C-alpha cells in the first residue's frame, strides 16, 4: 500500500514538471503528457527515487480519432509498481521523439507503430516498415483506413466451359 502512495507522489511531481495529467485507471495509474515531453517523462519514470519503473513492457500506437497516442506500459524488474504513460501526438503531424535512447527495446515496437499508424519516431536508428512491404500505401490501424468490402476483396472466378 505504501508503494502505491509513493508512486502516486512521484508521478504527481513528474506531472507538475511536464504539464501532464494523472488519472487513476482501472488497473494502474495513467500519466498523459504532450509528445514533446516524452523523453523527459520516460527518463524520470525510469529513475523514480525508491520506486523505479525501469522495465518498458510494451509500446503501442493508438488512434483516438482526433489525435494519436503512443502508450507506454511500464513495470519494474524489482517491484510490483505499474504505470502507463500516454503521449499525445498530433494527427496532422504525427512526430514524437524515439524512446530507443532510453530503452533499446523500443526499437521493433516503434517500427510497428510506424508501420500501422504512420507515427514518425524522431531519432530512431532504422525507421522502416516492419511487417508490411515497403511500398504499401496507407496505415492500416488508423480508424480512417478504408478496407474494401468482402465482395470486392474476394476474387471470384467463374469456370469456363472447357475447364
Amino acid at each position, binding site marked *: 500500500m505504501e508503494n502505491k502512495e509513493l508512486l502516486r507522489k512521484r508521478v504527481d511531481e513528474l506531472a507538475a514538471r511536464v504539464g501532464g495529467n494523472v488519472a487513476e485507471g482501472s488497473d494502474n495509474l495513467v500519466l498523459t503528457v504532450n509528445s514533446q515531453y516524452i523523453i523527459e517523462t520516460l527518463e524520470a519514470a525510469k529513475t523514480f527515487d525508491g520506486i523505479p519503473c525501469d522495465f518498458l513492457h510494451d509500446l503501442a500506437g493508438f488512434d483516438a480519432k482526433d489525435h494519436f497516442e503512443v502508450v507506454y506500459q511500464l513495470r519494474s524488474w524489482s517491484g510490483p509498481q505499474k504505470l502507463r504513460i500516454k503521449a499525445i501526438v498530433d494527427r496532422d503531424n504525427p512526430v514524437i521523439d524515439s524512446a530507443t535512447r532510453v530503452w533499446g*527495446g523500443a526499437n521493433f515496437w516503434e517500427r510497428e507503430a510506424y508501420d500501422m499508424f504512420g507515427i514518425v519516431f524522431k531519432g530512431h536508428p532504422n525507421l522502416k516498415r516492419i511487417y508490411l512491404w515497403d511500398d504499401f500505401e496507407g496505415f492500416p490501424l488508423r480508424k480512417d483506413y478504408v478496407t474494401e468490402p468482402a465482395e470486392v476483396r474476394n476474387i471470384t472466378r467463374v469456370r469456363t466451359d472447357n475447364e
Partner: protein
Amino acid sequence: MGEASTEELIVNLGPQHPSMHGVFRMVVHLDGEIVTKVEPKMGYLHRGIEKLAESRTYQQFIPYTDRLDYLASPCNNLAYVQTVEKLMELEIPERAEYLRVIFAELARIASHMVFISSAALDIAGWTTWGYPFRDRERILDLFEMSTGSRMTTNSMRIGGVQNDVPPEFWPALQSFLEDLPDMLEEYYGIYLGNEIAMGRMKHIGILSPETIKDLSLTGPVIRASGFDYDVRKAEPYGIYDRFDFKVPVLNGCDTYDRNMIRLYEIEESGKIIRQAMENIPDGPVMAKVPKLIKVPAGEVYHRVENPKGELGFYIVSDGTQKPVRIRIRTGTFTNLQSLNKVLIGNTVQDLIVIFASFDAVLGEVDK
C-alpha cells in the same frame, strides 16, 4: 602472419530455410565465417490480427489468439480471456480456474518439448527429435479428448472454459505425470547430457543482463541469464499464487543454459499440474455470462508468462460489443531484438544454434 581481410559476404537466410523455425528471414553480413551484422526481416506470416480484432466481437476473437503462439494455444487463450474478464470485473468458477491452469501448464510442457526437438535437430540430433514429439503426442491427446482439437484448442471462454473434461482425462493425465520424470531423464541423456551437444552450445551466444534490461527481454531466455523473473511470481494472475513451485534460474547466460532451463521448467509445470489435480473442486465451469458481451468502457493491460516470453494484451473498450483496439505484446517478437547483440562475432554454424535457443514461433512474431 599479417591479418587477412576478406570481402564482406551477404547471406540471406530464410524465409524458406529449415533452421528458421517458420518463415523468419535474416540477412546476415559475414566476414569470412564470422557474423558482423544481422538484419531480421519479418512479416511473412503477418495476418493483421490486431486489425481483425476491431471488426469482431469479444468472443469471436478468442480463436484468433490460438494462432499467435500456435504451439501453446491455451496459454494465449488464457491471456486474452483474463484481460477481458479484468475489464468486466468478472468472477469465474473455481473449477474453471483450475482447468485453465492445467491446460496452460500442459501447453507449456508441450511447447518446451517441441523446442527440445527442434533445437536438437538444428545440431543434427535426429534421434532426439523423435522422443519429445512422441511424448507431446500424449498431451495433444489430452487436449483432443477435452476440447476436440489438438493444437488450436480454443478451449477457454470469457467466464470460464468451454466444457468440463471427460472422466477418462484424469487417469490419462495421471499416467502422463508419472512418466514425466523418466521423459526428462531421457531428454537429458540423449541430448543435453551429450558431450557433442555441450561442445556445440556451452559458452556460445552470451546474453548479458544489461542487454536483457535494455531490450525488455522476457521468458526462459532471461532466466537462463540469472534473472529470477517470472510473471507467475512477480504479478500472479488467476490462481497461480496458490501453487507451490520454484522459478528455475541458471547463470550460464549461454545457449546451453537456454536449452537446459526448459527441462527445469517442464519439471516445475509438472508440479503445478499435480497440485491442481489434487485440489480441483467440483462445480460449474462457466460463469453466468450473457450471450452478447458488452464490455464496460475503459482500458486494461494484462500480461501472462507464456512458454516463449511474456504475452501482454492491451484492450481499449468503448462500451460496445466490439473492441476499439486490441494490442498484443508478444514474447518472441521482443526477444528477437537481441539477435544483433548475441550473434555478432559468432560463426555461421553457431548462429543456427543460438537462434534455435530463442525458440521463435513465427505466429507470435508476425501476428
